[in-house]
Each structure stands twice: as C-alpha cells, then as structure tokens.
C-alpha cells in the first residue's frame, strides 16, 4: 500500500488503528466478563434449585422416585419451568427425569466423585444440541445415594452475548469514525503552522532574504524550529550582504585602475607626442596594471580563504625570529624616515602555524605602522607569553592613530581610513583583512586599541606551542621558485 502523502493523514490513520485495537480489546474483555458472570449466575440458580429439590424427592412404596411438584409458590417461574432435572443411581441407572427433559440423558454416565462433597458445575449438550449448564450433587435419601443433576439452558446467555456483539458492531465504527474525524482535525490544526512556514520558506530567495518564518513566538517545538530557521536565515542574509558588498567593492576597486589605463591610453593616442612622452604614457599604464595585479592576487587569496581551500602547513614557529624577519624587511624604509623599530620580548615564545602566512600577517601590520608613523617616531614590537598559554605580539606605533568610529571597521575588506590617500600609500584596504583571516585561521585573535593622535597598538594573540622547535625558519623559505 502506498504511504499517504500527508503527515496529518498518516497521523490520523495511526491514531484510529491504535484506538480500534484498544476498543476491540476492551470490548472482548467485556464480553468475557459478561459471559463468566452470567454463567456463574446460572450456576448459583442451579445450586439453589438442587437444594430445594433435594427435600422434594420421595420414594413411593414400590420404590419409585417422585418429586412433589406442588411445593413452589410460583410454579410458572422461568427457572422452575425451564429446568432440566435427572436423578441417577451410583451405577448410572436413571431414577428420575423431569418432564422437560423427557427421555434425553443429561450429561451421560456419572464420573467418579461427581457431586460428592459439593456441587460440580459443567457445561454439556443435550442430544438435540441444546447447550446447558448443569450442576450435580449426591444426596442420600432413605439410605439411597442419589446423584441429582440439575441444568438450565445456556441459550439466554449466548443470546445476551450476541446482542452485545451486535450493539458493539454498530457502535464501534461510529466511535472510530468520530475519533478519526476529530483526530484529523486536531492534526491539521497542529500542523498548520508547518504549512504556513513552508509557504513562507518558498518565497525566500537570495534576493529576498529578509523574509522570516512565522510562528517563531510560539513556545512549542514548531516555534523552536521557526526560531532556529530564522537564525540561520539571518546568518545567511548577513553572509549574502557581505558577499554583495565585497563584489561591489571589488568591482569598484578593479574599475578604478582600468578607467585610468583607458583614459591615459586614449588621451595618449590622440597626441602626436615624442618617443619619451609615449614611454611615459605606457609606463603610467603599466603602473596601473601592477596595481591591478596586486589587487587580483589579494582577491584570489581572500576568495581561497573564504572557500576554505587554503591549506596551512603548520610547523613550530619561533615568534621572535618571525618578528625580526618581518621587521628587517622594512629596514630601509625605517632609515629613510629616521624611524626606529624595536623587537623585544621572550626569545622562547613559539606558536604552531604556517610560517609564510604568519610572516605575511606580521609584515602587513608592521608595514602599516611604518607607513603611518611620522618621521623620527619609534615602533615597538613586543612578544610575550601569557599565563593562559597565549603568545601575544603587540605592534605599537606613535602615528596619528585611528578615529574611534573607524576602529571596528578597520579589519573589513576594502576599508581605508583615509580614502583619498590610499593611492599614494599603495593599498587597497585588504592587508588587515588578510591579517585577520590568517590569525583567526590559526585559532588566534587580532585586536586594535588606538587613541587618536597617540598612535595605535595591534595585538595578535595566538595559542602557544610547547613542542620542541624544529629546524630553522630559513629552511622554509627554500620554497622559492627556481630562477
């Protein structure tokens, strides 16, 4: 059989079949109970009757057994009229059979111990198939042992049972149908929020991510489902929004150098200039091409980072050596600007990570510090290990600092504090976002504290490594391409 498509139908079917099973069981128990009660009632009647008839038997002079029929006040009583009565001698000889019984035997030859010391009750059939309930009792009369058997028909009992069954057959389906309808209605009502949610979910597309599922206020399971789903939607919306902004920022950043290449080239073509002039024009175009190349390299790194396809090659990295190496790169710039850079701290501080990426991160931060610090200032790179097993690298400069309102956005992609100045300082606002990604990919954090006009401090925290140092960092630089 095919499974019904709707959950509410399935629920109702389940519910109705369980109910039908339970009702049938209850009804069967009722029938059995009734049957046994009616039968024990029959037994009680029979016993009472036996006790009555015992005293009514007498032997005539010729030794015939008779019963005094005129005893009863109400001889027309059903129990009296409809009773079957037989008296047997211990050897099985029939001493007496009442009129209703006639010639038919009642229960056959006696078995040993029948009716001795109490009443034996059992079911039997007459020759014509009538079901009877009979009770036997041994009675001593005038020195003769008489086995008295008294029986009533069980037909009434079965008629009552049949009536009950017939009633049940009518009532049960009605009850089940009513229960089924009610159950279906309930299931439908309970499940209706799901339908609403499904309808709403269907309307949600990447362009319309601000829609939320209804019913999220409810305190039940469905409400919880809606809340969880809505939280997921919120995260998705945020991610999409970020992506959209990233795409639009990226295309803007790409368009700027392209526009310059185009203008410079077009204007250059219109001129009838000297060779040197053309060279200058081409040179200017190539400068923009270099900018584009760097930008695309950075975008590629970011997109690989986003898709999780960057694999970090982790080794033990001595942080002081890393910081010194990163700082040494800018030696010449520092000398030009009469700046001084100090690297100080714990020599044995080490982390586990990708040397190339960590170095890149430090280089980016130090480059920022060098770039924005005024002539003659000091830059401090401090390395320490905290009690909570973190290696903290602080890069402190005494530059103009970063305005408070810009501080939370400083790690965002394409974010530049001074939008007008970026071309001369040569960044597209991706350096710090790459730093953030790198540090977080290493399980660390990077934060900024800055007081405007007093400089800023970048604080990089990474989990410390207690593994023994392996090899020299210089060996890792051997990856450079052959020339």
């Amino acid at each position, binding site marked *: 059989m095919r499974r019904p498509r709707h959950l509410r139908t399935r629920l109702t079917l389940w519910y109705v079949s369980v109910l039908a099973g339970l009702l049938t069981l209850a009804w069967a128990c009722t029938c059995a109970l009734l049957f046994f009660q009616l039968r024990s009632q029959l037994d009680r009647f029979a016993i009472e009757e036996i006790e009555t008839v015992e005293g009514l038997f007498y032997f005539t002079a010729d030794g015939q057994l008779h019963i005094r029929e005129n005893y009863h006040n109400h001889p027309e009583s059903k129990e009296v009229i409809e009773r079957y009565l037989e008296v047997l001698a211990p050897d099985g000889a029939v001493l007496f059979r009442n009129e209703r019984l006639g010639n038919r035997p009642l229960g056959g030859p006696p078995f040993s111990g029948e009716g001795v010391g109490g009443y034996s009750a059992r079911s039997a059939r007459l020759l014509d198939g009538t079901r009877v309930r009979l009770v036997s009792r041994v009675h001593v009369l005038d020195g003769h042992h008489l086995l008295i058997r008294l029986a009533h028909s069980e037909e009434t009992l079965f008629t009552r049972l049949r009536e009950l069954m017939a009633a049940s057959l009518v009532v049960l389906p009605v009850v089940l149908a009513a229960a089924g309808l009610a159950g279906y209605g309930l299931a439908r009502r309970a499940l209706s929020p799901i339908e609403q949610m499904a309808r709403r979910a269907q309307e949600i597309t990447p362009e319309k991510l601000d829609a939320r599922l209804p019913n999220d206020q409810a305190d039940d399971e469905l409400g919880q489902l809606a809340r969880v789903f809505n939280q997921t939607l919120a995260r998705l919306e945020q991610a999409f929004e970020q992506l959209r902004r990233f795409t639009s920022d990226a295309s803007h950043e790409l368009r700027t150098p392209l526009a310059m290449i185009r203008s410079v080239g077009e204007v250059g073509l219109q001129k009838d200039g000297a060779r040197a002039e053309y060279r200058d024009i081409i040179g200017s175009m190539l*400068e923009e091409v*270099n900018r584009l190349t760097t930008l695309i*390299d950075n975008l590629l*790194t970011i997109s690989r980072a986003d898709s999780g396809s960057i694999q970090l090659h982790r080794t033990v990295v001595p942080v002081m050596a890393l910081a010194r190496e990163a700082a040494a790169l800018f030696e010449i710039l520092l000398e030009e600007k009469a700046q001084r850079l100090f690297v100080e701290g714990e020599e044995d501080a080490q982390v586990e990570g990708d040397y190339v990426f960590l170095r*890149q991160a430090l280089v980016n931060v130090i480059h920022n510090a060098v770039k924005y610090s005024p002539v003659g200032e000091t830059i401090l790179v401090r390395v320490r290990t905290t009690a909570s097993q973190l290696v903290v690298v602080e890069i402190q400069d005494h530059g103009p600092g970063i305005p408070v309102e810009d501080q939370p956005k400083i790690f965002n992609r394409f974010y530049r504090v001074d939008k007008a100045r970026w071309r001369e300082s*040569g960044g597209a606002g991706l*350096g710090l976002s790459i730093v953030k990604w790198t540090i977080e990919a290493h399980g660390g954090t990077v934060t900024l504290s800055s007081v405007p006009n007093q400089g800023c401090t970048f604080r990089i925290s990474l989990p410390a490594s207690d593994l023994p140092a392996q090899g020299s960092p210089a060996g890792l630089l051997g*990856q*450079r391409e052959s*020339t």
Partner: protein
Amino acid sequence: MQWGAVCPYKGYVHILVVEDEQKMAQALREGLEADGYSVRAAYTGEEGAYLIQAQPFDLVILDVMLPGHDGFEILATLRKRGTRTPVMLLTSRDAVEDRVRGLDTGADDYLVKPFAFPELLARTRALLRRGKPDANPHFRLADLEMDVARRSVVRNGQSLDLTAREFDLVEYLFENQGRVVSREMLARDIWHETSRQTPLDNVIDAQMVRLRRKLDGQFDRKLLHTVRGVGFVLRDEDGP
C-alpha cells in the same frame, strides 16, 4: 623599445611559444624576437605538439590552459618520449597544486600570468644558461666596475661603500645589464620573497633611491635608470 641588447649568437636560439591567445602569443613573439631569439608561435595544443616533434627547439614556452590538449598533457607526452628540451609553463592559475603538478610533470619553470615581461626574459635566459658555468665574476659598464669574488664595486677609480644587499643588487643588475629588471624579480631574487602579496614596492624603491645615490650621485653620467611602470635598468645611455 628594446628589452635588451641583441647578442649575435641568439639568432640561433629557437623558442617555441604555444599560446592560444593570439594577442598574447604575438606579444611574446615580438618581445622575444626583440631580445634576439628566433621564435615560432603555435596557437593550439595540437599544432604545438606537432612542431615539437617536427623540429628541435632550445626552449618551449607553454600555456597551460589550451583548448584541446592542455599544457600538462603536451608536457607529459613530451617527457614520455624522452625529450629534454627545457619547458616553461605559463598559467593564470596561481594555485600551489598547479605549480606542483607542473613541476612534477617535468616543467623546468613556471610563470604565473600576468607576469612582467622582463621576468620572462630573465627566466628564459636562466633556462638556456642552465648547466653552463657562469664564470664571469667581473663586470664593467662605462667607469663602473665590479669584482664579485673580491666583493668590490669601483666607480671612476673610487671604491664604493655598499651594504650586502646593495652589493647583491648591483651584481643582479650587472647580470641583467642593459635589460630591465622588474620589482617582482628583485623581490624574489634579492629579498627572497615568496609571496606576491608582500608590500615590498616601497622598500625596493627606497633601496634603489639609496643605491642610485651611491652609484650615480656625484657623477654626471647616469648608469642606473628607472623605467616607469616596469622597473630598473643598469645601462650606459650616454655611452658610445
């Protein structure tokens, strides 16, 4: 403009360029020819594979993304047949896997697009020179002399006081004398920087300003020049 001085022997050096972008192939061909090489261009993988079989080349410059057989396939076939011709792969995919795959397949070098043309020339020279001893520890340009073994640089009879990095730079510029070296080349070969993202341009520019001060500062005859948008060149423009 010419990228470098034409040496007479170069006319005998044959280079095959396999590149499906016709504009790119044309540029490569003209640039290499201007540097004095004899260049043949193929625009499809099939044509390239055929030409490699048909005639000997001293160097193959092979684009990875080709329609039909890609560069890796051609390279693999080439190496399977036992051809030892040096091969330089060009690709726009800067993925480490590609690089590793290329070098594993038997490429001798690997250049990521977009690249600076001087870089291509430098690598071409390096590949052609491979295996031959580089026995010229002595350079001279006009009145500038360098003795690599003795680590001395003399201008107009006057010994110049150079730092180790400046010395490396002068040696590198001398090796590429008359040809432009790009900032990327300097970053990689002098600063040993593997990542293209490292913001080294400012550093390189500052270093070159300082070196120029030492080399040319007090002389009228300028030898170290900046080529806008490309890089630097050691050349005697006022010479005979």
